């Protein structure tokens, strides 16, 4: 038997290291941090303050160097030529000094500062990669001759197994920013809960590295490995607050259902492999385009299983049962990361698999996603109304947001993918802001998370009440926030694809959840807080995260053009 198997010669894949930078930054950062912390457990206070302050300039220099390595040029060379060299370098030194002062004024811990730095460097790497390869709008004749890809096609980073295209870069950038803001939220939270230690940050970076693998995967097994790296780190993060029974319970539930869904996903991959003879998304596509399947039952079972597995990850009804329990029990900043980065990565994988490989079978999977979207929209918004706990309520509202993104996914058009990208980008910052406010409000031990605790928040801290109002209005889809444009885009995509009933259901769901959000806003301003309720103070790091999310929500809500352009460029990998 063995003699019959002829093994093909092993080919070493071409590795394009520059395209791996965003991923490697996060992974190497995590390894360095855990190695450093396992040698140096406790640092003298002055030394700690000194190296924490040094993280600021180190981050700026890191961004500059990584930008140069990825872009094969001195970064900001145009600016340098404009303002002359001495002025430019003096300016750079001034920025370094300012960044040190900024870190010092934030009073942030070393681990958090390090993670924020790594996240920023990773984000800059995605931006530079984007500028290098995916600016189809303003490519000149010379660029095209020099080999720039007008379609924004994938950079094959690791053979054909892993490649970054515009779509992957946008989601990679979102995940990197989610790391930055989650680390800012963690800092105050971990100190308040007396959980100081580097583990949470290491897991955060590892999980994000898994997410980056996932968004760029061109192979089902690579996708699975990325998904597991992402998920396993988050299972541990959910249960990290081991003194709280709720956190342990959330961790166990998330773990069991997550493992269950991964098994389904994997079985779906095996079925697709059986039907097409390949695990590579591009080869599967080529095979399906060239062949007419006589019996496609195996492929359809594969679709179903893949949808079950990914449906669990993005919390689509009927695979949503874990979401409320996990969101309620897990530490609030971890939930911010779960709802932003994990959900975005899940949708990136869903779109990648179904649009890159199975677009020819759109008539087969569209109705299923249609049904999932209807159930998710309605159940998410209706069940959110009856909740008494703010985190549980936001969990159901995140389910309903997943429904909106599925509305974009089911369109199976370029506009559909663009709306998914836009919605994911908008929702990332809305949800980080919302859970950021809850992190601060809930107080020690995450006790005060019921909706009654939000009563009269305006009197305890007007700025927080204002920020939460904006985030809730954004989630409700009120104009002049990103939430409105995002909802407009997905519903527009559904109408374009002639799914009128789905568009109507989405609008009804938006109205139902708007009622809920407005009720909370009213209780924050008109409700009366307990007499003994103290004013809430916000630590500077969390404030930076919340304010940044707020500015992005309002800024891109008023001027949605740039993100819209980004979303439309990102989808060229699928359409162009």
């Amino acid at each position, binding site marked *: 038997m063995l003699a019959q198997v*002829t093994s093909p010669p092993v080919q070493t894949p071409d590795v394009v290291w520059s395209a791996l930078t965003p991923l490697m930054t996060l992974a190497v950062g995590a390894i360095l941090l855990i190695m450093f912390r396992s040698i140096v457990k406790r640092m003298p206070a002055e030394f700690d303050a000194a190296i924490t302050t040094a993280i600021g300039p180190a981050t700026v220099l890191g961004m500059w160097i990584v930008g140069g390595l990825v872009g094969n040029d001195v970064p900001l060379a145009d600016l340098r030529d404009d303002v002359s060299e001495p002025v430019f370098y003096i300016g750079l030194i001034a920025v370094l000094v300012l960044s040190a002062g900024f870190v010092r004024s934030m009073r942030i811990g070393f681990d958090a500062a390090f993670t924020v730095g790594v996240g920023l460097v990773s984000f800059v790497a995605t931006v530079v990669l984007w500028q290098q390869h995916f600016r189809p709008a303003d490519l000149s004749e010379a660029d095209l001759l020099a080999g720039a890809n007008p379609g924004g096609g994938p950079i094959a980073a690791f053979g054909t197994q892993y490649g970054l295209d515009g779509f992957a870069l946008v989601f990679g950038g979102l995940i990197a920013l989610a790391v930055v803001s989650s680390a800012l939220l963690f800092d105050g939270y971990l100190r308040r809960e007396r959980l100081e230690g580097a583990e949470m940050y290491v897991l955060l970076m590892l999980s994000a590295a898994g997410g980056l693998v996932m968004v760029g995967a061109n192979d089902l097994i690579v996708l699975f490995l990325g998904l*597991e790296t992402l998920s396993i780190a988050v299972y541990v993060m959910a249960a990290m607050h081991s003194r709280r029974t709720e956190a342990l319970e959330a961790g*166990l539930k998330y*773990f069991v259902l997550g493992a*269950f869904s991964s*098994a389904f996903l994997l079985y779906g991959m095996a*079925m697709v492999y059986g039907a097409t003879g390949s695990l590579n998304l591009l080869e599967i596509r080529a095979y399906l385009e060239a062949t007419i399947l006589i019996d496609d039952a195996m492929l359809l079972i594969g679709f179903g299983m893949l949808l079950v597995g990914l449906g669990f990850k993005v919390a689509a009804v009927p695979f949503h049962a874990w979401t409320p329990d996990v969101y309620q029990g897990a530490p609030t900043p971890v939930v911010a990361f779960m709802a932003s980065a994990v959900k975005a990565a899940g949708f990136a994988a869903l779109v990648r698999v179904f649009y890159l490989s199975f677009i020819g079978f759109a008539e087969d999977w569209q109705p299923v996603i249609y049904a999932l979207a209807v159930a998710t929209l309605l159940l998410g918004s209706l069940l959110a109304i009856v909740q008494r706990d703010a985190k549980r309520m936001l969990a159901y509202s995140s389910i309903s947001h997943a429904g909106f993104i599925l509305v974009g996914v089911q369109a199976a058009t370029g506009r559909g993918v663009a709306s998914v990208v836009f919605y994911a980008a908008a929702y990332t910052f809305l949800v980080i802001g919302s859970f950021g406010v809850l992190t601060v409000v809930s107080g020690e031990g995450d006790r005060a998370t019921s909706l009654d605790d939000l009563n009269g928040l305006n009197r305890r801290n007007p700025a927080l009440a204002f920020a939460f109002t904006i985030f809730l209005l954004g989630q409700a889809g009120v104009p002049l926030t990103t939430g409105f444009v995002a909802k407009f885009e997905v519903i527009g995509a559904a109408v374009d694809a002639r799914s009128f009933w789905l568009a109507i259901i989405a609008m009804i769901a938006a109205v139902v959840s708007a009622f809920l959000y407005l009720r909370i806003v009213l209780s924050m301003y008109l409700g009366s807080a307990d007499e003994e309720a103290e004013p809430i103070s916000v630590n500077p790091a969390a404030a930076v995260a919340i304010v940044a999310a707020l500015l992005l929500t309002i800024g891109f809500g008023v001027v949605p053009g740039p993100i819209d352009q980004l979303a439309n460029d990102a989808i060229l990998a699928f359409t162009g």
Partner: protein
Amino acid sequence: MEVSTDWYLVLSAVLFAIGAVGLLIRRNPLVMFMCVELMLNAVNITFVAIGTELNDVSGQIAVFFVLVVAAVEVVVGLALVVAINRRRQGATADDISVLRG
């Protein structure tokens, strides 16, 4: 009677179903982990069977990755069970139900 690839596919489907049903009806966290392992190994049988049928090596390679992931998952799962048992002896999945609503 010749044992064809279909037999292996049926076997793996049956094992996968046993694992899935077991996970849903058993209440001991350890047995639930075993059921997850059963599901993952059922998938491994599918991969190997199809890989042999297609004379393609990537099915076999996939099994190695799945084995690694399964091992990692069990490590995390057992750590969670130990942490829960420290707070509460002999807890079953029904006892772990503070969160509901």
